[in-house]
């Protein structure tokens, strides 16, 4: 069989009925990757050797313990290049980390490896996950498989593109202000940001620690729940990971939305929303209503200031998190006789423009004399944003809204930072509040996918999957494939 554009569930069945093997799957995947990546630039590193070892181990596991083997066993996948893998170059798409090979593997990735995952490569992204188009990579932009003139969104653009291209059935990304959900929407894939604290951040190169979460890209909501279940759960190495047990998202996946109350925040369908996106999402609301959900308008009044709050808190944390890239111990160093010059030249040459901009913004916001006006004030408003979500979730079970106000835009078309920052206006409030959110395909405007976002209260991750699955099963958008996924089959 051809592995291209299949789901994890389909490939898992094929592995078990003997119609394919992990090694055969891997070979097909690598061949597809090689063909497609000339146009897409979705990969920074192809980890063939690691993948071969993992495929052989998975084959053994499937042969010896076919019943107990994980659904992910033997399935190819890819990792955003902000996730550390022992001995594999991990750059966060930054020049400053070129050649850096971590001596350890992060927790979420290790859990997948333990389940028998076959890692084919590290995917391209915006440098240090800062951006919404994957144009900020030091190693060139990623193209959208639906239209290679356009961006795949970002920052996890490579992880989104490779799933949309049909190369791998799933990948991991990271979401700090929408970096999984927004590219999922722009590439017609499913992308999920878990509740803050559900997935360990150990081994995730930090952008903004209080906002970052790791999550999957997949071709179906069921697959997404499957990957999430494999990576979620307490990790003693991450003090911000929640110790409570994770409820099985698959158990309630098929429960439907009948009787559920769903809220539509009026602020999330503002002026910036493209008419095509608006109409696709409004049609989706009707589908949910037809499934038995009750829809009502709700309000998250601080939405307009959430963007400002985000662009104080995230840069503040990033200015500190990125201080370790100083040329002293690892990565790139520009040698200079004086220490200060070495620091300045290394960081000047090693970081790209967007990263520098955010480091400067954050340094300023934390500076003596400005801290109260910026950082402290932003934290107060962040609390307010969070409380508004709590209040809304008193009225409704989940929120439904667009994932992105626009469809994929042309590369180079958003050259001023503010217009780029607007991409995340409906995704970043969920990061500020720590609530889970998913994007599922819900339409197509002139050949470009549209995403529907579902947001639920903290730790109600299963509910997000349940609503998204009900919608997905009632429509055909998730079956639509990008040209890369159909031609290569």
């Amino acid at each position, binding site marked *: 069989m051809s592995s291209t554009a299949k789901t994890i569930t389909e490939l898992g069945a094929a592995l078990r009925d003997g119609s394919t093997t992990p090694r055969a799957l891997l070979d097909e995947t690598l061949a597809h990757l090689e063909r497609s990546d000339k146009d897409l630039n979705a990969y920074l590193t192809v980890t063939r050797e690691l993948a071969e070892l993992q495929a052989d181990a998975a084959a053994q596991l499937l042969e010896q313990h076919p019943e107990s083997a994980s659904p992910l066993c033997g399935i190819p996948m890819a990792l955003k290049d902000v996730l550390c893998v022992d001995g594999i170059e991990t750059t966060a798409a930054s020049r400053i980390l070129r050649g850096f090979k971590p001596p350890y593997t992060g927790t979420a990735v290790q859990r997948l490896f333990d389940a028998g995952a076959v890692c084919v490569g590290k995917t391209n992204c915006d440098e240090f996950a800062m951006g919404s188009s994957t144009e900020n990579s030091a190693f060139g932009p990623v193209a959208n498989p639906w239209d290679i003139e356009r961006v795949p969104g970002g920052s996890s653009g490579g992880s989104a593109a490779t799933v949309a291209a049909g190369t791998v059935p799933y990948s991991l990304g990271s979401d700090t202000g929408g970096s999984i959900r927004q590219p999922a929407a722009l590439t017609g894939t499913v992308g999920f940001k878990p509740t803050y604290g559900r997935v360990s951040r150990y081994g995730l190169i930090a952008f903004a620690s209080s906002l970052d979460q790791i999550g999957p890209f997949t071709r179906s909501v069921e697959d997404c729940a499957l990957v999430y279940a494999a990576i979620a759960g307490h990790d003693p190495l991450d003090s911000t990971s929640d110790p409570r047990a994770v409820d099985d998202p698959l158990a309630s996946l098929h429960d439907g939305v009948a009787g559920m109350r769903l809220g539509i925040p009026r602020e999330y369908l503002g002026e910036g929303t493209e008419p095509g996106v608006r109409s696709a999402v409004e049609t989706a609301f009707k589908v949910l209503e037809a499934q038995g959900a009750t829809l009502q308008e709700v309000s998250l009044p601080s939405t307009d200031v959430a963007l400002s709050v985000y662009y104080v808190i995230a840069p503040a944390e990033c200015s*500190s998190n990125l201080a370790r890239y100083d040329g002293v111990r690892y990565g790139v160093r520009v040698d200079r006789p004086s220490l200060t010059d070495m620091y300045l030249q290394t960081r000047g040459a090693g970081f790209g423009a967007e990263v520098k901009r955010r480091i400067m913004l954050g340094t300023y916001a934390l500076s003596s004399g400005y801290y109260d006006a910026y950082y402290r004030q932003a934290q107060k408003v962040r609390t307010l944003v969070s409380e508004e979500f709590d209040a809304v979730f008193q009225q409704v079970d989940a929120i439904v809204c667009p994932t992105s106000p626009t469809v994929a835009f042309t590369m180079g078309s958003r050259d001023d930072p503010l217009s780029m920052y607007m991409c995340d206006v409906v995704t970043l409030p969920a990061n500020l509040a720590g609530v889970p959110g998913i994007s599922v395909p819900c339409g197509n405007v002139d050949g470009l996918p549209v995403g529907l976002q579902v947001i639920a209260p903290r730790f109600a991750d299963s509910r997000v999957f349940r609503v998204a699955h009900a919608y997905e099963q009632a429509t055909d958008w998730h079956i639509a494939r990008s040209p890369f996924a159909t031609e290569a089959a």
Partner: protein
Amino acid sequence: MSDYEVVIGLEVHAQLLTRSKMFCQCPADYLSAEPNANTCPVCIGLPGVLPTINAQAIDFTIRTALALNCDIPDFTKFDRKNYFYPDLPKGYQISQYDLPLSRDGHLEFPVNGAKVRCGVTRVHLEEDTGTMHHAGDVLQSATSSLIDLNRSGVPLMEIVGEPDLRSPEAAREYLVRLRQILMYIGVNDGNLEQGSFRCDANVSLRQRGATELGVKVEVKNMNSFRAVQRALEFEIERQTAVLDTGGTLPQETRGWVETQGRTISQRSKEQAHDYRYFPEPDLPPLRLDDAFVDRVRATLPELPEARAHRFEMEYGLGTYDAAVLTDTRESADSYEALVSAGVAAKLAANWQNGDVAALANEHRVPLWESGLGVAGLARLLRLVESGSINGPTAKELLAELYVAGGDPEAVVRERGLAQVSDATELAALVDAAIAANPAAAADYRAGKQQALGQLMRSVKEATGGKADMPLVNRLLRDRLSG
């Protein structure tokens, strides 16, 4: 010349004696390992790593705070202190800013007979940096520098004192007492030279009677009690000279240069870092409930001052003896072990502070680590008390067994060192001595007291030094006055 009041406040950094580092599992012992051997991705600040709090370090800090009479708030958090330096691998130090583990304590101690009370502003917890070795005197002029990150992430407690100290002696005494307490409660090894106990001083002068503080100078690089005292004395003299000639003092950081006996300017106020403190997002705030604090309180040992006082009361010791015995917890424990093994309190104190202290000093081995040990000393002293051996024999035996160890009773038995205290036997030897030294006997009878010495020596020699000499003395006097 004006009359100035000296105002000193001390900041002490003390490494905690935890098994592992503050935020990872690496051993906290950084001195005995090869450079960079005790490191992991967390303490060398690799991309993607996260800190996890060492519970023992929290415990030790609370223990310290309680010993220093601090309040323990029920809510505390860690913050990041941001600055660039090659020994700081993350580019920030995890420390505590506005919500420390404890605050508002104090320490009381005597200085020249007067009681001094110094406030403790706060005790908080942070991580130590790595260490650097420069090919050259300082980083700025070094051709290259090596970095050892074994110390990176070792738990470091900062004890900030109020500016309540009024003299270099008081400052020194504060440090001596503080170090003693930290060692007593088992949280720090008190090594100034190796830097496990470090001190910075803020010193300023003001017109006597003034209530506002003068411009403070921070003095660093003092790695002995003596250096602290000398550096402060130098600073006071320097500042006095500047003020006396109508000059003004800039707020600055100065370093003590031991070899030159002076402080030199390191950094002005304008060059001070903006550390951009903000809450550490990788560590949720901690809530310390009363039950936890009470459990820690229950582990606090009796502190030195209280113990010295009890020794005076309970064992009838003088202030000096009690203070010397309680200088360290081990010393005080050893003393109480001797007493509970049945040695008389006064006798135990005399021996421990006398011959035992001398031997400990000579061999650089404290009693509790010596071959003889506390139990061996107790057996030896019981032989003295029961009259089985005499004082000089006991001293010789102590010197012999202190390092080598051995059972005093067995040695006495094997070598026949038991004291000769049989009155009949000694009376015969006394008679023989008088007969052999007629001139001395005559001199004594004529009122020359010193003449008795020769007769005593004669009897002592005749018993191989084992005679019960007070009894010999009595027998001689009886016989010669008869």
